[in-house]
Every structure is written in C-alpha cells, then in structure tokens.
C-alpha cells in the first residue's frame, strides 16, 4: 500500500474518478475542489465533521444536485450533471442518511423498486398484463428476495415499513440499492444510530458485498466502524479535502485532528 499518495491502489481499475468537484448553495460553499479516485474492489470511506460536505458529495455524484464545477467520471464515462435516474442506470447505487424508504410499499416492494432498472416493461405492457411482463415480474421478485436475503430480512418481506425498527430500515435501504446490481454502492451514514451488534453485522455485510464484486463507498461519522473497515480514507472539512490516506496516516494527521477539535479518533 503506497503511503501518502493520492490514489489508494494505482494498479486496480478506477471505478469513480472525481476531479475538482464543487458545489455551492447560494453563498455556502458546500464542496470545493474535491479530487480523488475510487478503485474497483476497494473499501474507501469519507469522513469529516458535521457540515463537511459528505452528503453533498454523494448527492452530486448520484445526480440529485448539479455540480458547479469539476468532473466526475464513472468507468471512464463523464457523468457530471446527469439526472439521478441516468446515474442509477449506469450502475451507481446509494442509500440515504434518512433512509427515504417508500412508506406506501411493503419491504419487498421497496426492494423491487430498487430492481426497477432490471425490468423493461413499459406502461402499455404492464397495463395489458402481457406474458412478458408477468415473467419479468416473477424474475424481479426473485431477485429482490435475494437482496433481502443478503441483508437477512427475508422474514420481513411483506411487512409495512412503519413496523420496522431503525436498524432494519437501514438494511432495507441497502437491499433496495443492491436491487439494481450496482458496481459502485455509496452508503450515506449506514451505521448511524445502530447498536454495536448491528454495526458488526453491517461490517460483515460489506465484506460479503466486496466478495461479490461490488465496490462500496462509505460516508460515515462512526470512527471505529470506518477505521476497522477501510484501508483508505478521505477526510473532508468545510467542503475541502484536507487529508487522504490509510487509517494510521489519517489518525495522526494534524489537520484532521484540528478539524475534529479534540474528538477521539
């Protein structure tokens, strides 16, 4: 592992390449000139104090916000400025800090929406219930059950979302994002509010996903979680990247310590 460089592992394929990415809301510079790469198969985390721009980063990359400057390349293709559904179609999945689950749908149906890009039936085909769509529906249902099984929630498939505790809701969010069989999965504060055993379960899940060929990208607050999971960490503060490196490097970096102002890392 190269130390102190700007790329975690220059030998691996670069999945996501971000260069000089900026975003401001009115007068607030939420993100300025963020530059780094995510190689395939790595587990990279982004940390930073509150308001550092971490969620903004995910929102810009996933297409919820338009960037004000910079480049975003996914598998070599320029995706900056694409709307969210187009970004999703290219293989980038994400979860939300506040879950954003679909309350009118059951758990399984939520995950099936995640599988939306896996289907092709249009309005007319669905409306006339043609055999093609019936077959596709069954396939999507099976795929969704698989995703639910991966996070261990098959038993809750037909429950309404409102009945689920926080930990399970977060897992449904992950299962839903898995539905589109993404190459890159951006997790926005996945460990937020979770109990210790749930965090362990999450770590095991992430390792499992990496084995299956998925590249997770984790935005997090929870230090022990991040330190034990990632080999490479990006640190953001007030919209700027202030450090990048292995957990040891980041832990001892002066700028990082200053940014957190005495917080235990």
């Amino acid at each position, binding site marked *: 592992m190269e130390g102190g460089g700007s790329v975690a592992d220059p030998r691996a394929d670069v999945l996501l390449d971000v260069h000089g990415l900026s975003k401001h809301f009115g007068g607030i510079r939420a993100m300025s000139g963020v530059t780094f790469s995510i190689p395939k198969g790595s587990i990279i985390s982004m940390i930073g104090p509150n308001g550092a721009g971490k969620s903004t980063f995910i929102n810009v990359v996933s297409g*919820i916000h338009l960037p004000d400057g910079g480049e975003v390349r996914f598998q070599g293709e320029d995706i900056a400025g694409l709307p969210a559904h187009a970004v999703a179609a290219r293989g980038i999945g994400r979860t939300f800090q506040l879950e*954003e*689950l679909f309350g*009118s749908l059951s758990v399984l149906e939520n995950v099936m929406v995640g599988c939306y890009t896996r289907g092709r039936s249009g*309005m007319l085909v669905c409306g006339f219930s043609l055999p093609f769509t019936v077959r596709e529906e069954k396939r999507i249902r099976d795929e969704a059950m698989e995703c639910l099984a991966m996070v261990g929630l098959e038993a809750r498939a037909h429950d309404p979302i409102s009945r689920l505790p926080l930990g399970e809701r977060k897992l449904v969010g992950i299962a839903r994002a898995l539905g589109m069989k993404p190459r890159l999965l951006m997790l926005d504060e996945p460990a937020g509010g979770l109990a210790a055993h749930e965090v362990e379960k999450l770590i095991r899940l992430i390792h499992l996903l990496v084995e299956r060929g998925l590249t997770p990208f984790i935005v997090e607050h929870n230090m022990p979680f991040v330190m034990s999971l990632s080999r490479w960490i990006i640190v953001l503060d007030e919209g700027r990247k202030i450090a990048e490196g292995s957990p040891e490097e980041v832990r001892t970096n002066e700028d990082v310590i200053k940014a957190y102002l005495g917080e235990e890392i």
Partner: protein
Amino acid sequence: MSGTWRTKFLWIILVGFIFAIPLVAGSYVISVMCFIAMFGGLAVGMGLLLEQAGIFSLAHPTWFGLGAYVSGGLAVRGIAPPWLGSIIGAVFVGLVSYVIGAPLLRLKGYYLACATFGLLIIVEISLAQLGSLTGGHEGLMGIPPFSVGNFVLETDRHYYYLSWALCLACLWFLYNLMGSRMGRAVKSFSDSEVAASSMGVNVPRLKLKVFILTAMMASLIGSVYTFYLRFTQPGIFGFPLLVELVTMVIIGGGKTLYGPLLGAFVVMWLRELIHMYLGGLLPRTSAEVDAIFFGLLIIVILIFMPGGLAGWIDRFVYGGRRVRGRPQS
C-alpha cells in the same frame, strides 16, 4: 397465492353483478348505474392521480369535457362517426395533456392544484364563450347516438353495457399497471421523488405518462357520456363536477383503485335518495344544494375515516396486514 385467487374471485363477482343488473332492474336504476360507471371511472382515475401518485391535478373534468366536445362536435357535424370521434377526442386530449402537463407537473403539490384548477375554469369559460364552435352556454345539441357499423345504441341498456365495459376495462388496466413495475414506481415517487429517481425511475417522464393516461381515459368516458345524453354543455365540466369527483374519491377512499368506484356508487345513490325524500321539504334541489350534504360528508369522512370506505373495508377484511397508507411523518 391466495391473494390472487381472492382477487380473481372478487373480479368475477363484480363483473357478474354488473352484468346481471339490467336483467332485473328497470330503466331508472339502469340509468343511474350508467352514470355510476362513467363518473366512477373518472373518480378512479382521479383517485389514482391524487392519492396514489401524489399528483394533485384538479383538471380531470376538463379532459372529460374536451373528450365529450370533440367527439360530440365531430359527430354532430357529420365529420366523424361516434366511435372514430371518441378516438380522435382521446388523441386530442392526449396531446393537450402532454403540452400542458410537461410544464405544470413540475409544480409542487398545492401549486399544481391551483394551476390545474385555473385550467379547469379557463376551459369551462372558454367553451361557453366560443359560441360558434361549441354552441356557447347552451352547448351542443342533437348529437347522434353511438353506433358501431350498422348497430346503433339506442336504449339505456345498451349504454349501460358500453359504459360499464369501458369503466371495467379502465379499472382492469389500472389494476394491472399499479400491481406491476410501473405501478410500484408511481407509488414510490409519491413517497420520495429523490429515492425513486436514485433507483432509476425517470420521475418527470413517469408523472407525465400517468397524467396523459388518466386524461385519455377521462376523454373516452366523456365521449360515451355525450353520446348517451345526446347533448353537452360547458357547465357540466366545471367546478361542480370536480367537487363531485373529489367527494367520490374521499368517501370511497383513494388509496385503493376500487375505492372511488364504490364512492361513486354511494354518492350517486345518496343523491337520488336525497332528491326522493327531501326534495319535497327543501324549496329547491340543485347541484349546489346537493353540495351541502356532500360537503358535510367530506368533512366528516376526512376527519373520522380518512381512508374512506375502502380504507375501512381493507382494515376489516385484511386485518391491517395489507400495506395501505403512509406512516405519519
């Protein structure tokens, strides 16, 4: 799979019931049931937009009216036979709803409601003002009856089967749609547009598609309506119809597809009862007076039974295990 067998069973019962009614009932009942099919069909579309898709469009009566005027107008001038006029009307409405929907559907909830409400009034007033084209306030008269080839639909019974066939066809189509991938996508964006688009749903495009689809259905129903009545007036397609449809959606419950149809059944028969028994007591009966009862009923239902009749039935029959409604935020 007991769910689907139960659903199929209910469908068969419904269709059988509808089919059997004209065999035993008189002209009056058949006529009322005709209107239930038509307004119920409209209410179902509106309920879908309002409650399941979260699209607060109040323009539904407009599509109904435009369909009626286009097909009726073409038929009365001998330009197109009723069946063709109906299709032309639907296509016309499809285009208009596309042009209007594209900019308007970007508006947030209540702003969309205001804008579509404005549209409703504008079209109603315009239809009344463009006398030469539309017959002005009196509307179009002497519209020929619906005919397919040599077979002319003359009796109430004919229109009963026609209107119910159309209503049930729309209902069947919408049921398939909402139970499918597209239906899930629609329900998803009404809960969270951000999450839905992050899952690959092209939300603006899908909103427009649903909008156009329900508009075209309303247009077809409007065509059947005008060939049944043989005349049409701008006053029919304005605010009073909107209130009536919303009443049906609220009373029946908009979270399910059949709710508004049930609501239509209740509202129309309730109105007949009011006219029959209270007509003598009240100095006058008219749409506005009916509105007193329906307004009060809406308020009561919204406060005490927000899910409407269908919501209550669902809880009763499915014991609350079926997912209906949103968690309170």
